[in-house]
C-alpha cells in the first residue's frame, strides 16, 4: 500500500500546532514512516504541487487571500483535517469578530494601508467541508499520533468529546474548583489535553473548546457563586475558542 501523501498548510496561526508534528520526538520516525510528508514548509523544502491524500490545515481564515487558498487546497485534497483551535473555531484572533477592525489596524500598524484583512477570523469549516477536526491550543501529541495512526488504516480517530473532567479524574487530580474554588472550564471543555492545568493546580482554560452537550450556563452560575463577576466570566469564555458558538453565547450573556 502506497503511503498517503500529506500536505501541511498554515493559515492565520502561531505555528504551534503544526510544530506538534515535529514535537512527536520518539514517534516522529514512525509518523514519517507511515505517511509521505510531501509539503510541510516548517520541515521540508518541497513545493506545494499536486493532490494530497491528507491535508492538515492549521489556522483560521482572516484575509481574502486565505479565503481563496482554502478553496484551492480543498479541491486538491481527499481528506481535509483541521489542527487546533484557530482552524476549528477561529482562534484567539477571533476576538476581533464583532469589533472595529479598522480601529485595531489604525492602533497597531504604522502603515495601515498595507494591511489587507477581513473583518473576521473564521474556522475552516465556515469555508469548506472538513473531514475531521482536531481540537486544542495547541493540539496534543497523543491526539495527533492517534489521528495519523487512525487515518492511515482508515478508521475514526479516538478523540473523545466528553468533558476534560473525565481525563482529570482518570489522572487522579484533585478537582481545583471544588477543593480551592478556582474557576475552571473543565466541565464544559472537550477532552484531549490530559487535564494538564488541573495537574498543576490551575483551572482549565478551555483550550480544546466546547465539549459535547456543554452546560455553560450552569457552570457560569456556579462561577458567580464562587465570586466571579460578569467581566471575569465573559473573559474566561473569551480566549482561544472565543468564536466557538457555545462559548461565544455564554460570554455575550455576561458582557
Amino acid at each position, binding site marked *: 500500500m502506497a503511503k498517503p501523501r500529506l500536505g501541511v498548510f498554515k493559515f492565520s496561526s502561531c505555528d504551534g500546532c503544526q510544530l506538534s508534528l515535529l514535537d512527536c520526538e520518539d*514517534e516522529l*520516525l*514512525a*509518523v514519517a*514512516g*507511515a505517511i509521505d510528508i510531501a509539503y510541510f514548509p516548517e520541515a521540508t523544502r518541497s513545493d506545494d504541487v499536486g493532490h494530497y491524500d491528507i491535508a492538515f490545515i492549521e489556522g483560521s481564515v482572516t484575509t481574502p487571500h486565505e479565503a481563496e487558498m482554502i478553496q484551492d487546497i480543498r479541491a486538491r485534497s481527499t481528506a481535509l483535517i483541521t489542527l487546533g483551535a484557530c482552524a476549528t473555531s477561529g482562534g484567539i484572533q477571533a476576538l476581533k469578530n464583532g469589533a472595529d477592525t479598522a480601529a485595531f489596524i489604525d492602533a497597531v500598524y504604522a502603515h495601515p494601508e498595507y494591511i489587507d484583512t477581513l473583518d473576521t477570523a473564521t474556522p475552516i469549516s465556515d469555508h469548506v467541508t472538513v473531514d475531521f477536526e482536531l481540537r486544542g491550543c495547541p493540539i496534543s501529541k497523543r491526539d495527533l*499520533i492517534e489521528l*495519523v*495512526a*487512525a487515518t*492511515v*488504516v482508515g478508521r475514526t480517530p*479516538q478523540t*473523545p*468529546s*466528553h*468533558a476534560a*473532567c*473525565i481525563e482529570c*479524574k*482518570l489522572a*487522579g*487530580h*484533585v*478537582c481545583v*474548583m*471544588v*477543593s*480551592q474554588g478556582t474557576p*475552571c472550564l*473543565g*466541565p*464544559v471543555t472537550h477532552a484531549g489535553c490530559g487535564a494538564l492545568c488541573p495537574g498543576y*493546580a490551575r483551572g482549565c482554560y478551555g483550550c480544546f473548546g466546547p465539549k*459535547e*452537550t*456543554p*452546560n455553560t*450556563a*450552569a*457552570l457560569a*452560575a*456556579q462561577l458567580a457563586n464562587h465570586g466571579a463577576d460578569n467581566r471575569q466570566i465573559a473573559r474566561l469564555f473569551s480566549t482561544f475558542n472565543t468564536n466557538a458558538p457555545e462559548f461565544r453565547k455564554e460570554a455575550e450573556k455576561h458582557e
Partner: protein
Amino acid sequence: MTLPVVIDIKALDQLVQTLAKDRQVMGPVRRDGAVVYEEIQGVDDLPRGWIDEQEGGHYRLKREGDKLFGYTVGPSSWKRFLHPPKQTLWRAGGGGITPEPIAEDRFAFLGVRGCELAAIQVQDKVFMDGPYRDPHYAARRENLFIVAVNCTRAGATCFCASMDTGPKVNPGYDIALTEIDGGLLAEVGSDAGGAALAALTSRPATEADLAAAAQGIKDAEGQMGRKLNTDGLADILKDNPDHPRWSVVADACLNCANCTMVCPTCFCTTVDEVSALDSDEVSRENRWASCFTTEFSYVHGGAVRPGAKARYRQWMTHKLGTWWDQFDSSGCTGCGRCITWCPVGIDITEEAAAIRGEGG
C-alpha cells in the same frame, strides 16, 4: 472470636511495616488540598490533625485536633486500585491474540471506612459474582488486606447511616480500628487480621475503651449531614420517569461525569483499540466510562440519552433503583462523594426526596 485490643500509633506503624513486606500499603495522604489514597511508608504519611469540611461542590481541609483518621472521605476511592482507570485486556499482533497477564498486585488498604467497604463489596458483586468475572479485579481482591476504620466524625455530605453501611464498618475487613483517646481499638475480622494483630504490641481493651469507641461511632452517626429515605425508593424512581424534577436537575447538571468518576461503586468502562504506528500490534484497553457522556449510549444514528435530563435520570434510577434488580443491593453506600465533588453541588439525597414528593 479474638477479643478487641488497644494498640498505640507505634504499633500501627509496625503494622504498616509488616504489611509492606509483601504488599503495597495504600492509605490516606494529604495532597493538593485533599486527602487522597496513595502508597504510604508509615504512619508519618497519614494526615494527622487534618479534617475536611464538605458541602455540595465544596471541600476544604483544615487543621483540627490530632486524630489520624479525623477526616472523612476524599475524592479518590479504593476502586482506583482494584478497578483501575485503565487496564489492558489483550494484545494482538503477528496473527495471534495474547491476553494480558493476570494482575499480580498485592494491596493492603489502611483506613477503609464503612461506606467504602460496602462499596468494595458492591463492586465484588459486579466483577466477581456474575457470569462475566473480571480476572484482574478478582486477583487483586483475592490478595487484598483491609484495615478498616470506624468513623468517629461524619461530614456534611455523609449519609451512610441511611444506607446501613456505617459509620461502624460491617464485616468484610481483616482488622477494624476505632480511634479513641490514647490509642486505637483494634478488632479482628479474619484469620489473617488476627495473625497480623497478634504480632503487634497491644493491651486488652477495657470496658472504658469499648465504651469510648462506641461513643465515637455514635457521635459520627449523629453528625450525618444528609439523609436518604430508601423506603420504597426503587419503585418510586422507576414509576416516575416523567417527573418534572428531572428537568430541574438537568438545568443545573453539567453532565461532566464527575459524580460517576468519584463514585466508589460506578463500574462502567469502555474499550479502546490502541494501534501502533510502526507495527501491526493492537492492544485493547479498558477505560473508565460514564453514563453522562454521549458516547455511552450512542447507537447507529445518535445517542439514546442525548442530554442531562435522560442521563441524570438513568444514573440515579440505576444507582438507587434498578441496581437492586441487577445486583440485589443498592448501588449507593452513602459516602456523599457525588454531592461534594459535583462542581455545582447537585445532591442525590435532595433529588431523591424531590422525586418522592418531599422537600426539594
